[in-house]
């Protein structure tokens, strides 16, 4: 008999399924049931670029301590896909568990000696209970949830309640689903040793936290931030941002009497048209955004340059993924940092925001529009597939009832009549931000012709060098203003004084939190700084100054944030040590701990790369 892993509320379950088999809702039911028992759980979709037939995985990390990052390894594999059997079995930790459909015999060679095998004849049970092939497939998923509930001590009443909520309005479906759940549960209780060494026990560790996807949260942020025009082109993993925006707008922005909407959404013919529409709408005073991913940002380059030079507010929600083609693009990366920061031709720099979870996706999704109007420039909200397309436990979304939308420097007809000088590119306030007028404002004042470059402060056509330089220097002043307005980086000081630091951003956050705990237990102390925006505020420079060496943890090959820091802050590159995860899987605490511990000896941190004398 292999040893049995023993753990309560601290394990990883990975479901291996076939895409399109209806497993997603059953797996979600499983994760949700654990959350309802008051135990933090984080699901992750690992899915192919495919609609039906290819392998797909759903990983649930259960962690009473609230570690929401990916852990690595599997304690219980639910192997429902013969295609991936071998690799799924290989990933199981020694002493872990393998749950499989035992309707057909499997050769001994397909099992591992150090893994506990749990066979449930799912297909046989389905075939006996149902005649309709589609029902056989769908209920098989619910049956395995039932069996797992018995094996992991998940409360039946919780699952019944969730099924009732899920099928509310389609009440006929509740009873058969509950029956299928109990079919699996009863079989397991009767035939298997329940519970396993790993199990769930009711706790109160969730509080008022909510469970949602970052894409939906960012879209809701856009609604709260006053976006009324959305133009987009379908691309994974960002399509669900636009789809969620439409859903939220139908709910919150539709006139009940007329059925008319206080919003406009256009699925454009490509990303060029998407950003073109956003720029046109924003030029004309509506808050507008597009949602896209890396390839879309590539296509938008020319327009982004125009928006930078012509100073048009525009919001781009970029849900990052792997590079071109299909396949890797359904995996996570932080690889658009540089292509967004310096998007386009000519001398350009853009404002980027890096949310860590759905709550910040909402917050930044709204704030981006205030920043865009205030700074009159494109703002990128840098989501990632990891937080965009996975449901994540996070603090509830918050909105200050007193908050007003900041429309920035827009001159009204009254302002123009008050004889204030209007020069579209005139720096009146010394912050680099000029005033603008919207088309249609005044019968005789304030009209101007919008161009990229080639203009003077009064928006008159000018090919003169000094006029160009004057304008470009003002844009730098504006960028310095941006550094004061964007969300500042958040420091997490170590408990003991240290000269070593670590910088991270975006979806790395939960893995980093966990890694810092583990490192501390190993007597390795690091001050941490989570960057939330570009341009960098003074706190980033101060953090770098205060440490001899700093690790920069990111999820791309080329250490793009490091490049940005070195380039923008003039830091000696040798002082920033990259820790890079870029295979498409979400970064884990194990990875970070190993990478950092390897480079540090004991608790005494020394500069990692001394200059050669």
């Amino acid at each position, binding site marked *: 008999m292999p040893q049995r892993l023993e753990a309560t509320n601290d394990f990883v379950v990975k479901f291996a399924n076939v895409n399109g088999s209806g497993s997603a809702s059953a797996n979600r039911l499983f994760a949700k049931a654990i959350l309802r028992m008051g135990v933090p759980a984080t699901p992750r979709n690992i899915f192919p670029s495919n609609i039906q037939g290819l392998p797909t995985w759903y990983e649930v990390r259960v962690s009473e301590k609230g570690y929401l990052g990916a852990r690595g390894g599997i304690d219980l594999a639910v192997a429902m896909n013969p295609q991936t059997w071998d690799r799924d079995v290989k990933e199981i930790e020694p002493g872990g568990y393998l749950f499989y459909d035992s309707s057909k015999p499997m050769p001994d060679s397909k099992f591992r000696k150090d893994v506990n095998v749990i066979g449930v004849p799912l297909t046989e049970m389905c075939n006996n209970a149902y005649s309709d092939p589609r029902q056989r497939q769908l209920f098989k998923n619910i049956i395995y949830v039932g069996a797992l509930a018995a094996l992991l001590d998940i409360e039946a009443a919780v699952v019944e309640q969730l099924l009732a909520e899920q099928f509310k309005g389609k009440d006929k479906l509740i009873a058969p689903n509950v029956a299928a759940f109990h079919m699996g549960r009863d079989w397991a209780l009767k035939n298997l040793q329940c519970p396993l060494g790993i199990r769930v026990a009711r706790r109160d560790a*969730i509080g*008022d*936290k*909510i*469970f949602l996807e970052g894409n939906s949260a960012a879209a*809701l942020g856009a*609604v*709260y931030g*006053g976006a*009324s*025009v959305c*133009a987009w082109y379908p691309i994974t993993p960002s399509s669900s941002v636009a789809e969620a925006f439409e859903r939220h707008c139908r709910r*919150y*922005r539709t006139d009940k009497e*007329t*059925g*008319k*909407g*206080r*919003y*406009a959404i*256009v699925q*454009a*013919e*490509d990303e060029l*048209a*998407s950003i*073109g*529409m*956003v*720029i*046109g*709408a*924003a*030029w*004309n*005073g*509506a*808050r*507008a955004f597009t949602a896209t991913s890396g390839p879309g940002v590539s296509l938008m380059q*020319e*327009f982004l340059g*125009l928006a930078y030079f*012509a100073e048009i507010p525009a919001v781009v929600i970029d849900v990052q993924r792997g590079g071109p083609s299909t396949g890797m693009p359904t995996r996570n990366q932080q690889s658009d940092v540089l292509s967004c920061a310096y998007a386009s031709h000519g001398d350009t720099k853009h404002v980027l925001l890096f949310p860590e979870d759905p709550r910040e996706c909402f917050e930044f999704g709204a704030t981006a529009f205030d920043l865009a109007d205030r700074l009159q420039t494109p703002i990128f909200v840098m989501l990632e597939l990891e937080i965009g397309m996975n449901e994540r436990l996070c603090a*509830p*979304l918050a*909105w200050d*009832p007193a908050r*007003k*939308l900041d429309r920035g420097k827009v001159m009204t007809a009254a302002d123009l009549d008050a004889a204030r000088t209007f020069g579209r590119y005139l720096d009146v306030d010394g912050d680099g931000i000029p005033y603008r007028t919207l*088309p*249609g404002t005044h*019968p005789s004042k304030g*009209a*101007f*012709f*919008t*161009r*990229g470059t080639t203009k003077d402060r009064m928006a008159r*056509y000018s090919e003169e060098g000094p006029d160009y330089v004057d304008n470009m220097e003002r844009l730098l002043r504006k960028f310095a203003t941006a550094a004061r307005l964007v969300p500042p980086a958040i420091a997490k000081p170590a408990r003991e004084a240290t000269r070593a630091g670590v910088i991270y951003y975006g979806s790395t956050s939960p893995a980093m939190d966990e890694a810092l705990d583990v490192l501390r237990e190993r007597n390795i102390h690091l001050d941490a700084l989570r960057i939330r925006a570009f341009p960098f505020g003074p706190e980033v420079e101060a953090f770098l100054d205060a440490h001899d060496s700093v690790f920069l943890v990111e999820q791309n090959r080329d250490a793009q944030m490091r490049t940005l820091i070195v380039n923008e802050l003039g830091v000696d590159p040798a002082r920033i040590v990259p820790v890079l995860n870029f295979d498409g899987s979400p970064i884990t605490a194990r990875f970070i701990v190993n990478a950092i511990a390897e480079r540090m000896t004991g608790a005494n941190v020394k500069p990692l790369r001394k200059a050669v004398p």
Partner: protein
Amino acid sequence: MTYIAKPKFRHPSLPTNALGFTRRDYEGTVSTLCAGCGHDSISAAIIQACFELSLPPHRIAKLSGIGCSSKTPTYFLGASHGFNSVHGRMPSVLTGANLANRELVYLGVSGDGDSASIGLGQFAHAIRRGVNMLYIVENNGVYGLTKGQFSATSDRGSKSKKGVVNTDEPIDLVGMALQLGATFVGRSFSGDKAQLVPLIKAGLLHGGAAFIDCISPCVAFNNHEGSTRSFDYVRAHNEAVNRLDVIPARAEITADYAPGETVDVRQHDGSVIRLKKVAADYDTSDRVGALTYLQRRQEAGEIVTGLLYLDEEPVDLHQSLKTAEKPLNALSDAELCPGAGELAKFNASLR
């Protein structure tokens, strides 16, 4: 081009329109195009049309791409906001602008390089969405600013100034606009102001996607023997199917023509287009018939001009999207932001 600045004074007896504006109030800065350029005639026609319609200049937004034609919005409607965007992408910028404020008049100015080559996709999609606009292509069959390369509307067999013969089939933007569902399609010639001005007026008043292909010879690079876009060639092959007058809404309609010679078409805004038929059997309400007619005449080497198709009840993008009547750029915080109470309910649904 001239380098002498336009004098600001005006003759006290200049006629004014219903708003009290003179024609000068619709002008822009002095043109920097070549002397004799067809595009300047189109700018003049736009100025005339807006003056005659008594449109408040600041309620017009003029948008363009890149190229000689796209430079022209500086030369008319100086009191209107203008946007010189990127090459071939005016249609998307105009679409977005229109979404933000449905109450302005949108005038898109483009060229054959801008719309038929780099911007063919955006041209097509703006038309098929039914964006409420007047889209004018100043079509000279050549790239002017980059000095004389063929454009995608150049006829096969047409000769460039350097003597090169074009071997590619031309793209007919009028035919495309008809196929893509434009609800107002016209073609004219920059040298025929009497036809062009009323066509622009009718297009500006149209409540959907209005498209005018305006042949506009390039005096610098495409006005020679062997070109099918020269002034001489177009004059010799211009076949107008109709002439029109535009009678704005609420204006008195007087009969100048004997019955049977004219057809009155009422547009959605109440204005009337009075068509004086030249080709007796041409029917402006028959989209398929128009396509066939155009292709037959093109085969015969003729350039068909006039109002070629009109749908009196166009459906525009805002109607399709069911957007609110109030312009989106004028919505208040309360109309946009659902507030803290709704957010609490949203949070509660996610536990």
